[in-house]
């Protein structure tokens, strides 16, 4: 299927599509790898169709999620809620030092009554802060923690580098064997860009700093392993990929992958951090194997912060050269990404704008003795957006141009119409026409000042052909749709049911969705906003096939051919004569006791790719205290066919809240001298709470394309719009997140001194 994968820094596919094919942009979202590629796929437009949207009853409407009642009553079973006969609780011990060796004495821990097993988790070498080094299983979580305290860990501490400054210093302690600072880009010749910059009418520059953010999933990483000896196991995992679990778990349990079933009924947030079994899941499997008892191992909150992933931070030094009209003619940049012991997501600079300019970007990564970064919602894009949108506003102010005009000039031709339409709609929603400071910040002496900022996002969101879906119709008329996929809270379960109900003329509650089990049809892991565009066409196909199979059974009853039939609400009737009909129950009664089973596979023509969105923020800055208050955020987004207006709206708003939180509050803090993670808890690592939520308005564009994933696009622009709004409000450009009051005050003081 895949031909010549390319990084889609390129706006367009590499060549025109072959006959019967089309290009889609797909995100490859295996953990840590978040490359977007163009893929040429079949564009067979036969088979099922979504049909006219105005005739839809469920799809494309606002439908309350089917598992809402389970979630609001506490009945929804998350992996961490599993309670099994004989189950024991496990905990992991983190390394106290970022780098060194450790010797463990486990006997005292093993001697504690109630402690059932204690194991070392690695060979004694530690190369990142907080690495789990031992695990204890006990009859209660409290006793398991006693066990951790009783493990005597003797460390030989070695010099470490936990901050980029330490890692990049001369004679820095080595992180891994690849070198602490690695240049990943190949081009080293900047002469053309240097020339263009030298000739530019104006030059604008800055260095933006991006902190390390944490996923902060409320349900921590972990599993419940149900293994009681024998040759079968079930792993209840808090994961974004049901099918990423059995293979890994089988290895740790000494079983074959087909002897392990993964179950993900509900999961409490992943945001890109929950693929594969992980160290914690591996430990749980080993303990279960040892004890032949079910083991419950969920990371405690501090370990979750230390050892369960993060969004790569970094530093972007950018310089833009502009001509007299405000068009960027050259961009020179140095992008440094932090990946811990990993490489970090690529930060795609230049981001959207400036594609017609001459560009030179040096892409580097710096390794530190910290947990590897992982994919996090829109990997790399929020980081790139932060510096690039800041640069755009600085270009506008340097040129005396309106903040929208600078964007119009510098958007690539292929995207100008889309983004300007969205930006202008955001401007209308947020009151831009009445705003006085369109091409210069408010430098007046008033105390409470209000500014507006804009930012945009793009994402691929294409699907792929991994999903196999089954629709079962029973003799009594009940319907099930089955897929091994997982619902991260996006509403997957709900659209599985609504697509089938729509196709078969049923009410939503007549279709039971069954998901989250590796014994059901295969499904892709939920990364890169690929779930909806991969799964929904497969569900549609299975429902379509079920309908056709049922028509075959019903046609003789009505004395017509199957292709003369159509579904109505709760019935099957002759299309040309709707009064000639069979009620749903009677139609299904023609089925044998085994009922009917129909399969579905991905249909490329029911999905599409490439979403765009614009957001704006209105921010109040108190120049006496520096306090930043986000008053309002607005968003305009396209995403093809909306599977459920209600849950898509929730996802978009949720992305905006996460971006606000990223912008204003979030930052991992590690003490460089002590090598200690100082804020590995929810008091000191702050995320946005109910008091920080601004007024929010979101709109979706009417978009005739098929289903596209949009969840990543939602989280990309918000913090950039807020940073720009602060600058617009009071003149202070904060170059480093989080955007805090002290930085406003320092900036105001610097402006005052400059006069």
């Amino acid at each position, binding site marked *: 299927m895949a031909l010549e994968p390319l990084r889609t820094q390129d706006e367009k596919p590499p060549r025109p599509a072959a006959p019967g094919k089309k290009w889609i942009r797909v995100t490859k979202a295996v953990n840590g790898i978040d490359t977007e590629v163009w893929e040429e796929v079949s564009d067979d437009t036969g088979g099922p169709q979504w049909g006219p949207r105005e005739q839809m009853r469920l799809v494309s409407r606002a439908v*309350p*999620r089917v598992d*809402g*009642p389970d*979630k*609001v*009553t*506490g*009945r929804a079973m*998350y992996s*961490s*809620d599993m*309670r099994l006969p004989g189950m024991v609780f496990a905990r992991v*011990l983190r390394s*106290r*030092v970022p780098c060194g060796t450790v010797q463990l004495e486990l006997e*005292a821990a093993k*001697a*504690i*009554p109630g402690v059932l097993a204690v194991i070392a988790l690695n060979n004694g070498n530690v190369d990142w802060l907080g690495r789990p080094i031992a695990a204890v299983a006990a009859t*209660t*979580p*409290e006793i398991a923690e*006693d066990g*951790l305290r*009783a*493990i*005597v*860990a*003797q*460390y030989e501490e070695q010099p470490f580098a936990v901050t980029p400054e330490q890692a990049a210093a001369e004679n820095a302690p080595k992180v891994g064997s690849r070198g602490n600072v690695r240049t990943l880009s190949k081009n080293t010749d900047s002469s053309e860009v240097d020339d263009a910059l030298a000739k530019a009418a104006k030059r604008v520059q800055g260095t933006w700093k991006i902190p390390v953010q944490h*996923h*902060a*999933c*409320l*349900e921590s990483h972990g599993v419940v392993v149900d293994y009681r000896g024998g040759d079968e196991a079930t792993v209840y995992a808090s994961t974004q990929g049901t099918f990423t679990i059995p293979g890994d778990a089988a290895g740790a349990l000494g079983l074959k992958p087909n002897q392990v079933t993964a179950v993900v009924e*509900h*999961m*409490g*947030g992943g945001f890109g951090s929950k693929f594969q079994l992980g160290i914690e899941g591996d430990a749980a499997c080993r303990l279960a194997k040892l004890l032949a008892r079910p083991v419950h191992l969920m990371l*405690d*909150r501090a370990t979750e912060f230390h050892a369960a992933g993060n969004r790569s931070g970094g530093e972007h030094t950018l310089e833009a050269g502009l001509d007299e009209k405000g068009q960027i003619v050259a961009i020179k940049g140095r992008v440094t990404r932090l990946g811990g012991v990993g490489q970090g997501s690529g930060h795609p600079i230049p981001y959207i704008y400036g594609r017609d300019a001459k560009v030179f970007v040096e892409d580097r990564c710096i390794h530190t003795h910290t947990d590897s970064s992982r994919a996090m919602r829109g990997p790399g894009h929020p980081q790139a957006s932060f510096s690039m949108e800041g640069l755009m506003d600085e270009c506008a102010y340097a040129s005396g141009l309106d903040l929208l005009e600078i964007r119009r000039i510098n958007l690539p031709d292929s995207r100008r119409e889309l983004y300007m339409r969205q930006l202008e709609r955001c401007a209308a929603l947020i009151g831009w026409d009445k705003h006085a400071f369109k091409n210069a910040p408010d430098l007046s002496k008033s105390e409470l000042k209000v500014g507006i900022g804009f930012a945009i996002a793009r994402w691929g969101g294409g699907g792929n052909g991994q999903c196999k879906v089954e629709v079962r119709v029973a003799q009594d008329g009940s319907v099930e749709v089955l897929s091994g996929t997982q619902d*991260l*809270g996006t509403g997957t379960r709900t659209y599985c049911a609504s697509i089938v109900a729509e196709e078969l003329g049923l009410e939503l509650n007549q279709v039971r969705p069954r998901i989250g089990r590796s014994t059901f049809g295969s499904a892709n892991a939920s990364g890169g906003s690929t779930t909806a565009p991969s799964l929904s066409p497969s569900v549609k196909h299975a429902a379509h096939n079920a309908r056709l199979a049922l028509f075959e059974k019903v046609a003789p009853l009505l004395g017509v051919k199957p292709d003369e039939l159509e579904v109505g609400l709760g019935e099957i009737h002759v299309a040309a004569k709707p009064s000639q009909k069979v009620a749903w129950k009677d139609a299904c009664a023609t089925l044998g006791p085994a009922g009917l089973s129909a399969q579905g596979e991905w249909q490329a023509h029911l999905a599409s790719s490439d979403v765009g969105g614009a957001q704006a923020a209105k921010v109040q800055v108190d120049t006496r205290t520096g306090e930043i208050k986000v008053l309002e955020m607005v968003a305009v987004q396209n995403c093809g066919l909306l599977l459920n207006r209600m*849950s898509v*709206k*929730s996802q978009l708003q*949720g*992305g905006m*809240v996460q971006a606000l*939180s990223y912008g204003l509050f979030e930052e991992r803090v590690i003490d460089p001298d002590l090598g200690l993670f100082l804020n590995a*808890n*929810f*008091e000191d690592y702050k*995320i946005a*709470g*109910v*008091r920080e*939520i601004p007024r*929010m308005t979101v709109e979706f564009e009417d978009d005739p394309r098929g289903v596209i994933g949009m969840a990543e696009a939602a989280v990309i622009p918000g913090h950039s719009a807020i940073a720009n709004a602060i600058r617009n409000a009071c003149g202070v450009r904060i170059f480093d997140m989080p955007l805090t009051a002290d930085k406003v005050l320092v900036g105001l003081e610097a402006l005052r001194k400059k006069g």
Partner: protein
Amino acid sequence: MSDAASPPEAKSSPEPRSGSQAKPALTRRAFFKGAGVVAAGGVIGEAVSAANARAYGPATLEGTVEVELDINGAKQKVTLEPRTTLLNALRNHCNPPLTGTKLVCDRGSCGACTVHLDGRPVYSCMTLAVDTVGHKVKTIEGLSPRGELTVLQQKFCEHDGSQCGFCTPGFVMAITACLERNPAASLDEIQNACSGNLCRCGTQPQIFEAALAAGRALQAKGGK
């Protein structure tokens, strides 16, 4: 300050009875006394500080106690250690396990474990189970014991007040207590009531809508 942050008043907590189990060969305290010796100079021993605290600090309680908890209107005897939080008692000691109440931070900073103690919202991770003896505990499971939804729960469903849903029981408990006090609660009062609750999916706007809609519906019905 949120009500949810207030710990319960421990007026009538019983004296925990020590040693209801057979005396083990090596008690934890005996171990910790010994462990101090292991910690030689220059070696960082994870156990050292704990060992010192246990060896020289206040006497620690050991063993388990049997207590009778009053949960969702039914009395239930559970055997647990005095240090067991109400949260862990609900999730790990009750029969059947009451896992609707979620463990997220385990230190009173996220609100996911909010339950009602004598009608007031408390963090069950910051409340010892033994301290609730003689008090009425209500959990998310107790709001709708026969499966029917409360007005607030209905409105949560209608307004999409859950995404991943892990924070939902905590929000529902915090806002339920608020609306029980005052069905006419303003947005500000509702936000105050759940200012101790975190939601990572960013569902707060829909939660506010649900809470306000529930308040209106409750007022129309005349309170409850």
